[in-house]
């Protein structure tokens, strides 16, 4: 046996399952290397020009990557080649060995037990058996129930983050943290900040004929309220600026909406930011009471009911009610934005900024439809 050179000794220390042979004057190294507890069979031929590598079938897709790596790093010698290959495999092939999450498990269990001891007033609190999430139900000042699901994030620094919730709040307003209490306190803080908002929405649901949303949740910060057969209004509330005048939009023919808009213009200066918001909104639009749900049941047999979209002949499309209403007196036909847009595009209607303007299918007068995003 030839004497071992330094290179070979270094290799054997790092990759003990590789063997050197000499074939036709070329040094060849064959064997297996162990990356992330998986064995890969490799063969390296070393010549004056450098190393050429033969990869097993499961690694063939890395061949091009390796060649690029080889030329950029000017790899010389079998050890540096094998090192580069090992790094490449670690990089590209996810480890199949389960990651060790014991530390996080301990932290989750500790945080959870502290949490349940600290907040005795929770309605319910439940840690899923696989420690993946925590479901909490809390009662607010008015005994409303709020549910929140907190996910355990095993790959991040902040291991607790809110997964499911029902508040009119963007996700980025919710804190993630490595402390369960911080996450919860932030959520409970939002709930208590939103008390006047919940109260107002409940008032709408109690006193008005709300046609949308049908199944009202806390996260729905708008109400579409029935005023007449072809007239409704959408009130959109800014939950964190309750004293501000909300956005109000009337849907219906101009002849009916005009008087409401002029009412608003006349009363807008009387808006009292400190008053009861529900009553202030009624004063603003000039109503003493909201009209109640009409007694006459909607007939299912009629092909197109009032308020249905005249294109798809139904009221809900992807859960949305028709939002474009022809503004012309005696027409007031309704359309879903998507339906009307598709039709107006097909007849090459004019696009004006973010709207498309064409003819109402019913009265043939101008109608404008926002271009859906």
């Amino acid at each position, binding site marked *: 046996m030839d004497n071992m050179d330094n290179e070979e000794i270094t290799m054997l220390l790092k990759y003990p399952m590789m063997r050197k042979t000499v074939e036709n004057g070329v040094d060849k190294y064959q064997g297996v290397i162990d990356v992330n507890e998986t064995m890969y069979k490799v063969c390296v031929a070393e010549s004056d020009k450098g190393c050429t590598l033969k990869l097993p079938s499961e690694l063939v897709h890395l061949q091009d990557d390796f060649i690029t790596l080889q030329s950029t790093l000017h790899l010389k010698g079998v050890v540096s080649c094998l090192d580069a290959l090992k790094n490449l495999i670690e990089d590209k092939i996810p480890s199949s060995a389960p990651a060790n999450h014991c530390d996080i498990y301990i932290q989750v269990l500790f945080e959870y037990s502290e949490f349940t001891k600290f907040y005795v007033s929770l309605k319910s609190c439940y840690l899923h058996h696989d420690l993946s999430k925590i479901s909490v139900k809390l009662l607010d000042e008015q005994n409303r129930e709020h549910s929140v699901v907190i996910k355990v994030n095993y790959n991040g620094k902040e291991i607790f983050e809110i997964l499911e919730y029902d508040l009119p709040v963007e996700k980025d307003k919710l804190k993630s943290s490595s402390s369960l209490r911080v996450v919860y306190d932030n959520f409970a803080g939002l709930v208590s900040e939103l008390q006047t908002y919940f109260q107002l929405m409940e008032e709408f649901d109690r006193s008005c004929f709300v046609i949308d949303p049908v199944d009202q949740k806390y996260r729905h910060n708008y109400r579409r309220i029935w005023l007449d057969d072809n007239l409704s209004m959408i009130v959109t509330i800014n939950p964190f600026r309750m004293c501000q005048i909300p956005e109000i939009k009337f849907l219906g023919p101009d002849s009916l909406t005009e008087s409401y808009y002029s009412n608003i213009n006349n009363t807008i200066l009387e808006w009292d930011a400190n008053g009861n918001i529900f009553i202030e909104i009624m004063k603003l639009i000039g109503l003493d009471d909201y009209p109640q749900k009409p007694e006459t049941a909607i007939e299912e*047999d*009629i*092909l197109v009911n009032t308020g249905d979209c*005249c*294109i*798809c*002949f*139904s009221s809900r*499309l992807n859960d949305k009610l028709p939002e474009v209403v022809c503004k012309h007196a005696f027409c007031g*036909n309704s359309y879903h934005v998507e*339906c009307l847009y*598709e*039709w107006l595009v*097909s007849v090459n209607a004019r696009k004006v900024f973010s709207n498309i303007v064409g003819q109402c*299918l*019913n009265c043939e007068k101008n109608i404008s439809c926002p271009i859906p995003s």
Partner: protein
Amino acid sequence: MAGMSPSERRLQKELMSLVKEPPPGVSVDPDIAERNLLHWIIDIRGAAGTLYEGERFQLQFKFSNKYPFDSPEVTFVGQNIPVHPHVYSNGHICLSILTDDWSPALSVQSVCLSIMSMLSSCKEKQRPPDNAFYVKTCNKNPKKTKWWYHDDSV
């Protein structure tokens, strides 16, 4: 009606309405239509007091999956094709709402009523003047014909 496209939902709704409350003189075979929602056969009867009184005709409706943005293809089929200045002997109908003037707000029901009224206002039973030439040269699909709508009286 879950799992249906808006187009299928609308056709289903139109079919139900036409079966339950058909306009006078119009009837649809729900079995044929339900087997294939895109292909309907509708029976119409000539109205009393018109040149077509007592006659029965069959209309074929073919819908594309772009309905109602796309108009249906409507032709007379069967043994009896009405003799009318706007109806060719191959069943094709010259009626503007079936092509250029189509609007998604129209429905199978309104198309049937338009055709009934077209028949009812006829004063003399005759084929269109270019019938022989048209029937020989036309496309099978009447929507491919470039129609000239010149006569509004019938």
